[in-house]
């Protein structure tokens, strides 16, 4: 929200003023570690390399990005985007999109057109503030500053991102000085604070949800959803971090998350659970927090008379982290549908779209968790969602 940004900006300013001579420094390499896997384009860092016509701002509104604006030509029934002029592509060529690229039929509402454009349905250009220098998919990516970036050259020269690292390994690397920024478990916040580690805790930007396979019975899903004691888990196991929720989107993004039930009703779950029903629940050995949550879910669900077995494959349900990629509710929901590999809901109000996604009970949201970054003291201006272009490294003495 805007007022929060102002607050952050104010605190940064205050830090600068206190230091007296500190100004953003150009240069240096930032070493980041993340648990995300796959192509860099599918992670939170995608926006640092690839750009779209529009982007969602911190209020969830779609704002011009590579497009500087859009007008409606009623006579041809199209929305026409105007392209930014000074966008430079990897081989130092100017981005010069064709007319077709910049026109969209007005058969859909403008909101939907903008959200889809923000998701890269129309244009994705490798024109971000950083360029890929080297990539080992799923393992590491080395980024270099885009000297000709239309928004101004980033402060950092290089960013090295190590992917697929468990949070435990990340913390180890952090302590050994092998990484400047790592993701920390929310359960480690207390300990890290006691160790005077600089932490950046985001708003809830991750949904922890139980995802059922198609073949599981609807009654079993309902019984499981009712038997899970979210509040106990959040208070004790998540150290009161994050939020308990029955919604895909966190309350601060949607504003209506409380409408989705988080009821814990074992007797109703018992009544719903088919006699002799079983559930093969998968646990991810690499994710400590999810593993302990799965263990607790198994205990809770067994109270409903469902025989739960834990496994690592062939599962009927698994607990996963779903990154919330946008502050715009509809854009976030479409991205979630894609991530969950379920049919995207019809375009409607965010509440209707979310209700649609959750209707069959295959996805049972449990918590919204913040993302916690541990930062080396010289890392400045780190923000969530990531904007590496504004990050700079203070010179270490």
């Amino acid at each position, binding site marked *: 929200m805007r007022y929060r940004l102002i607050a952050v900006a104010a605190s940064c300013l205050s830090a600068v003023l206190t230091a007296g001579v500190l100004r953003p420094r150009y240069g240096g390499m930032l070493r980041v570690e993340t648990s995300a896997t796959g192509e860099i384009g599918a992670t939170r860092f995608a926006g640092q390399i690839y750009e779209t016509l529009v982007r969602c701002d911190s209020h969830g509104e779609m704002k011009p990005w590579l497009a500087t604006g859009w007008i409606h030509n009623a006579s041809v029934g199209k929305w026409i985007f105007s392209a930014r002029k000074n966008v430079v592509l990897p081989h130092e060529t100017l981005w010069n999109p064709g007319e077709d690229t910049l026109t969209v039929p007005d058969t859909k509402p403008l909101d939907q057109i903008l959200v889809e454009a923000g998701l890269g349905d129309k244009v994705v250009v490798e024109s971000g503030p950083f360029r890929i220098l080297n990539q080992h998919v799923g393992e590491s990516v080395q980024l270099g500053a885009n000297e000709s970036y239309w928004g101004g050259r980033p402060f950092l020269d290089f960013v090295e991102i190590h992917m697929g690292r468990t949070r435990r390994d990340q913390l180890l690397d952090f302590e050994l000085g092998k990484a400047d920024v790592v993701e920390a478990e929310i359960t480690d916040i207390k300990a890290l604070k006691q160790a005077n580690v600089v932490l950046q805790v985001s708003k809830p930007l991750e949904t922890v949800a139980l995802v059922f396979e198609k073949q599981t019975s609807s009654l079993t899903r309902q019984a499981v959803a009712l038997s899970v004691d979210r509040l106990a888990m959040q208070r004790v*196991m998540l*150290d009161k971090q994050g939020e308990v929720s029955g919604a895909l989107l966190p309350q601060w993004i949607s504003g209506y998350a409380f409408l989705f039930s988080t009821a814990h009703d074992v007797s109703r779950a018992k009544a719903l659970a088919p006699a002799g029903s079983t559930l093969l629940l998968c646990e991810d050995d690499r994710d400590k927090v999810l593993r302990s949550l799965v263990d607790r879910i198994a*205990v809770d669900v067994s109270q409903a008379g469902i025989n739960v*077995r*834990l496994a690592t494959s062939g599962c009927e349900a698994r607990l996963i982290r779903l990154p919330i990629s946008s502050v715009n509710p509809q854009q976030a929901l479409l991205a979630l549908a894609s991530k969950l590999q379920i049919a995207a809901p019809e375009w409607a109000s965010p509440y209707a779209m979310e209700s649609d996604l959750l209707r069959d009970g295959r996805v049972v949201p449990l918590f919204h968790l913040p993302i916690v970054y541990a930062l080396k003291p010289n890392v400045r201006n780190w923000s969530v969602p990531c904007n590496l272009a504004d990050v700079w490294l203070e010179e270490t003495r």
Partner: protein
Amino acid sequence: MTFRTKLLIVSSLTVAGAVTIVTGGVLVAARQVFERVDAERQEALLEQFKREIKTQGAAVSAAVVRAASSTLLTRMAAEANQPEPDFASFYTDAQVLAENTGLEFLDITRKDLMVLSSAHWPVRFGYKNDWRSCIECKPNQAFLTKIPLPDGTTAMALAAFQRQGDLILLGAKRLDAAFMKALGEAPGVRTLLWVGPQECFSAGGPVALSAEFQNLVVEALRKPVVSRRIGNEAYLAVPLQQNGAVFGVLLVGTSLQQQITLERSILKIGFWVAAGGILLGVLLGWWATERVTRPVNELARGARDVAAGNWSAKVNVPAGDEMGELADAFNRMTAELVERQNRALQAERVAAWRELARRLAHELKNPLFPLQITIENMQRARAAGAQEFDETFQEGARTLLDEVRNFKTIIGRFSDFSRMPPPQFERVNIGDAISDAVRLYEAQLSLNDIRVHAQVSCAALTIDADPDQLRRALGNLILNAIDAMPNGGSLTFSVVGLEHAVRIAVTDTGQGLTEEEGSRLFTPYYTTKQHGTGLGLAIVQGVVSDHQGTIIVESGTGRGATFIIELPITQRAAERP
């Protein structure tokens, strides 16, 4: 089954039975001794187990007391008393306490047993502790319990609890392989602790129970003590109970190897003794039966010889016992039989000569009468005058010559019968042979008003035969039929092909034969007719016999007669030209 076999079986069984009874008795006695020793060893181990439970229980109880008096639990008790206690801060406390005190299981609960912190199952906070099985137990008193584990199994453990303010601390140590090791098993003794369907361990680690063991455990869960032999071990299953609830089953097994070795030795000795006894029995039996069965076999052989026609057979059995007397009686019997046969043959031979003399006399007497008359006529003519003599002489000479010829014929017939040549075989069509024979006697048949019928199943039926002898034999049968039907009748030839022979049936409709006549029909010189030599049918039988065939007659008085000849289709090659 021979007498010898029976005798051998009986003697073998007797020896084997005796040895078995002795061996079994020794085995039972040995087993009882071993079982008594095993029971004592098992009892000692059970006592050791109970002592170890007490010792370990005291250790658990001490550890629980240590944990309950720790500052950590004191802090927890104070925090739990706050209006809004922070349960999150308790989450890992039990694990810390467990590590410090060496307790494998540790739950910190409220008074109502709601778990605030669990060491072995941290995520179970908020639920009631479900292994405080011993409600009546006092603090410091260890008790057996079953602790549910996250993987769905249970662990059997020795537990104790302590109160600290409004909190209850429950600690436990698992009864596992290490505990079993502490029992210190004696050689030949094996101890297993069954805790649940999927959990059983010995001092060496987890053990997968076979179906036999599982059955034993199931039985032990219902009865106080069950003992059973499984494989080479004898097991005693004792349910472990606390306040009426069964937490597991202790299985104490003692090796039966020594017992089995002894039993095997006894069995081995018993086997060899039985085998030796049986062998000796066989040899003795053989000797004994040899003495008994040899004369019997000799008698049997003699009887078989007599049956085969050797009436002079004798058996050679030493005298002196019952078998010797039997042999003497047999030899006397055969000697008597031979003597009687000789007498019968002699009588038959005399009878044959008499018949031959009668026949010769009859045959020769017939031509003698005309000779006598002729000579007397010629004598009378001589006396009457020369002319009449000449006339009479001429006629008388002719008659004399005829009768002399007649004499020659009679003598020739006898001569022919005695000098019948061996047959000269060639392929002869039976139908043709019958036709030729009938044709020879066509005039006589016709004269006697006899109709001839022929039924030949296959016109081209040929056999190896001497055509002249065959015709002669058939001719004799035709002549015999003509004689049998003086008032006419019908003569039927029927030929039927068999597998390796042909059957020729010659049937007349004459007066038939009596039984006695039938039995003597083929005897030479025997005839029922007033004329003839009685050689006709004997010749027929001779021809048939020379052709390796058979002839029989079927007849009855007034029913006519049928002569049935069977001749082989082929003769042996050496006999063919």
